[in-house]
C-alpha cells in the first residue's frame, strides 16, 4: 500500500494563505529504462494529483515521467472555512490513493 505524507496547518486565520506539502511513495517508473537483459520496463507513474477543499477543486497537477520518484508537490491555498482538504493521486495500473486532512479556520 502506497503511503502519503501531507503537511497542512491544523488551524489558520480566515483569508490566510497556507502552504500545503504533499509526498506520496511511488516508483514513477518512466517507461524508458531497461532491465539488464534488455527488456523494457513498462511505464508506471502517477498521472494526476487533485486537491479539493470542502468539495471544491483548488489545485491539480498533470504529472509526466520527468517527475522524480516519490512525487513531492508543494502549493498553497486560501483558508476560507473550516473543513476537509482531500488529496487524490491517480495513475497507471489503476493506482489511486486518497488522503484527507482537517483544517480549523477561525
Amino acid at each position: 500500500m502506497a503511503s502519503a505524507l501531507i503537511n497542512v496547518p491544523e488551524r489558520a486565520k480566515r483569508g490566510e494563505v497556507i502552504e500545503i506539502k504533499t509526498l506520496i511513495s511511488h516508483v514513477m517508473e518512466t517507461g524508458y529504462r531497461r532491465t539488464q537483459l534488455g527488456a523494457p520496463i513498462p511505464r508506471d507513474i502517477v498521472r494526476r494529483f487533485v486537491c479539493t477543499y470542502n468539495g471544491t477543486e483548488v489545485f491539480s497537477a498533470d504529472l509526466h515521467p520527468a517527475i522524480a520518484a516519490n512525487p513531492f508537490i508543494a502549493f498553497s491555498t486560501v483558508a476560507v472555512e473550516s473543513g476537509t482538504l482531500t488529496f487524490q493521486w491517480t495513475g497507471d495500473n489503476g493506482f489511486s490513493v486518497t488522503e484527507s486532512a482537517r483544517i480549523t479556520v477561525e
Partner: protein
Amino acid sequence: MNRREFLRATGGLAAGIGALIAVEPASATPATMQDAIRKVVGSARVNPGRVKLDLPPLSENGNAVPLTVSVESAMSQADHVKAIHVFNEKNPQPDVVSFHLGPRAGRATVSTRIRLADTQTVVAIAELSDGSFWSARAAVVVTLAACLEDA
C-alpha cells in the same frame, strides 16, 4: 542613485535582454520542446518575465532536482494564474508537469522535484486568466543523469 538601485536597474535590464533573446524562435532549443510549448499556448505570444523559475545551477543527481516556480500575480478572481507548465529540452519527453491553479490558490508558487536526463534548459510557462502567457527559463548542469541506469 545609490549602488543598490544601480545594480537593481542594470541587473533587471540584463535579465530582460537575456529573456528576449531566449524566446526568439531561432534559439537552439530542440524542436520537440517548441512543439510541446506550441501545443499548450497555441498561437498566443509568450512574453518573458513575471515568472520566476528556481532550479539549482548545478545538480549532482538528475533523478531529483528541486524546482520552484512562482508567478507575480494578484491571484484575485479577475486576475490570476490559471496554469503553470514546465518543459525541458533533452529528456525523452518534453513535458515535465502542468499545474492548474485558480484564485483559490492565494499565491502562485509551486514546488516539486523533477528528473533531468542531461545538462539542459528548463522552461516554465504561466497561463494567466486574461489569456496571456509568461515564461522563464533556467539552465541546469547535471552531473549524474536520470533515466539511463539499468534496473
